[in-house]
């Protein structure tokens, strides 16, 4: 009985077969040969051009890195390792140490991710799993729109809205009402411009990146995975927690890394909110500095070659840190997908 079904399927294929030989006959063997030769040459030119374009991108990257490194080399040679560890940033006396800026970049980005990641995953889960159909597109669009707001506008909003709110309400609340002031992170006077403000504004700016990647990843989780959990008696929440999120984990981490990359390099809004003081303070209420805002602030009026070189060196350090973060991220994504995908002990 299945035999009959199989033979009827096979009957279909011979009908298509004659087209190929008759097509070749119409062209004639000679012209066909010429056409094939032409196609081969065309292919070669095409692939050579494409290869060239593709090589341009890494070449440009290497060029930029070399250029920045050479520019920063005088400062790096002069101060050596202490360039990374010293807090002295004194253009007048020609002493430069980038530690506060490095610290500020890392801490503000960490605050941003700590706030944005859970929020963004929540938004993504809501939009992909829980929201009624009519609500999904509009809300997703609005969240994505956050990424389209120019960073200087975030800066302005931060100066006129976020800073006063932080200074008058949030910081005193955290420090005095919740008595978190006993911790070094929430102690000290509440000025407004601070590491906390920079981290907050960054969290708003990276949120759309994380949430839109996470949403795509969650939507891409195969229905079979959800059904597997449901068919085993899982509730909707257990399905999401036990089957959907683990499956989407590596993709979500990828989204977080994308956000981190954005946070590390963000300049304008942070410059307007962080206070721009080259110091390392445990308190998040204290002003700080980031590498990007340091360069943006001082590059135009750099006094002397060494100052300029120090700024270039800061740029190089930022470049290297971004590379390292990305490498760690790749490794993480690979680890996570390997743990799920292939053989592990």
């Amino acid at each position: 009985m299945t035999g009959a079904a199989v033979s009827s399927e096979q009957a279909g294929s011979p009908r298509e077969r004659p087209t190929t030989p008759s097509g070749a006959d119409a062209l004639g063997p000679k012209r066909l040969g010429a056409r094939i030769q032409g196609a081969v040459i065309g292919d070669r030119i095409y692939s050579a051009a494409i290869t060239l374009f593709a090589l341009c991108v890494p070449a440009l990257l290497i060029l930029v890195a070399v250029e920045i490194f050479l520019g920063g080399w005088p400062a790096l040679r002069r101060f050596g390792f202490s360039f990374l560890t010293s807090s002295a940033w004194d253009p007048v006396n020609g002493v430069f140490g980038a530690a506060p800026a490095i610290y500020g970049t890392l801490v503000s980005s960490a605050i941003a991710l700590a706030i944005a990641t859970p929020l963004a995953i929540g938004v993504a889960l809501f939009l992909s799993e829980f929201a009624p159909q009519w609500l999904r597109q509009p809300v997703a669009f609005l969240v994505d729109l956050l990424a389209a707001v120019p960073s200087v506008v975030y800066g302005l909003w931060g100066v006129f809205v976020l800073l006063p709110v932080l200074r008058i309400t949030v910081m005193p609340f955290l420090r005095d009402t919740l008595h978190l002031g006993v911790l070094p992170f929430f102690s000290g006077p509440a000025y407004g411009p601070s590491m906390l403000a920079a981290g907050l504004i960054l969290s708003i700016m990276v949120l759309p990146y994380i949430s839109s990647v996470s949403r795509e990843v969650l939507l891409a989780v195969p229905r079979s995975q959800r059904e597997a959990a449901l068919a085993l008696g899982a509730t909707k929440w257990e399905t999401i927690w036990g089957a959907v999120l683990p499956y989407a984990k590596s993709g979500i981490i990828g989204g977080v890394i994308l956000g981190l990359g954005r946070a590390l390099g963000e300049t304008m809004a942070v410059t307007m909110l962080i206070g721009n003081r080259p110091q390392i303070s445990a308190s998040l209420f204290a002003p700080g500095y980031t590498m990007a805002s340091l360069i943006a602030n001082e590059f135009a009026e750099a006094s002397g070659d060494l100052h300029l070189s120090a700024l270039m060196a800061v740029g190089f350090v930022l470049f290297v840190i971004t590379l390292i973060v990305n490498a760690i991220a790749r490794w993480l994504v690979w680890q996570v997908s390997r743990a799920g995908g292939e053989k592990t002990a």
Partner: protein
Amino acid sequence: MTAATVEVTARGQPSGSGAPVTNRGALAARQFSFWYGEKQALFDIDLDMRSSAITALIGPSGCGKSTFLRSINRMHDLLPGTRHEGQILLDDADVYRPEVDATALRRRVGMVFQRWNCFPKSIYDNVAYGPRINASLPRHELDWIVESSLRRAALWDEVKDRLRQTALGLSGGQQQRLCIARTLANDPEVLLLDEPASALDPIATQKIEELLYELKRELTVVIVTHNLQQAARASDYTAFFYMGRLIEVGPTDRMFTAPQEERTNSYITGRFG
């Protein structure tokens, strides 16, 4: 309840042998209709699926057999715009009663899908998934459930040395048997299989069929299959669906040798589908 049973026999389901209707895990559909939005997919299905037997649902693509299978454990619940009429009885109680918890139902009525869908976790964690979400068990008890489920799925000997390795490293046939083991870990009364072997090679298919033959002693097994030989080989009863209707049902050997309906005959002899 007795009235219902009488009504069942009165409605004249081809009964084959006079097996008892009240066995644990016995399934029955009564005037069951189902709609996807405006489109009606099932029309007044009346079908008994006996316990300790394998019932095969056959029919051409789009005939509603998978829809019917998924109605039994209420997998359609989460699809918006679906509705049903009539009843699906599990041990003589309608699974669509409002007080029935669908998640509890799905623990009693396990389901295995066409494409094996192991979680990207270890073999152990896959099997332990159901017991873990449904109860917090002490370690040794969970170990025992995992081992016995894998044994029942005839997979234990192949995987016992690598329980901590990811399930996705197994072959397709092994993964499908792992999916069966994962379902068995919930100790269900009914096992629904939606074309479980259609993506497997003949050897793996044979293993699944042998496994089902073992499992039917303690379970009601309902299998949707496109493979008529499989239905003929592996099932006790065969139900033929066509365009959302149940055309004919009966003991498998009679269905394949002396079908009473012309359309059944056409289908099993390969004249359409």
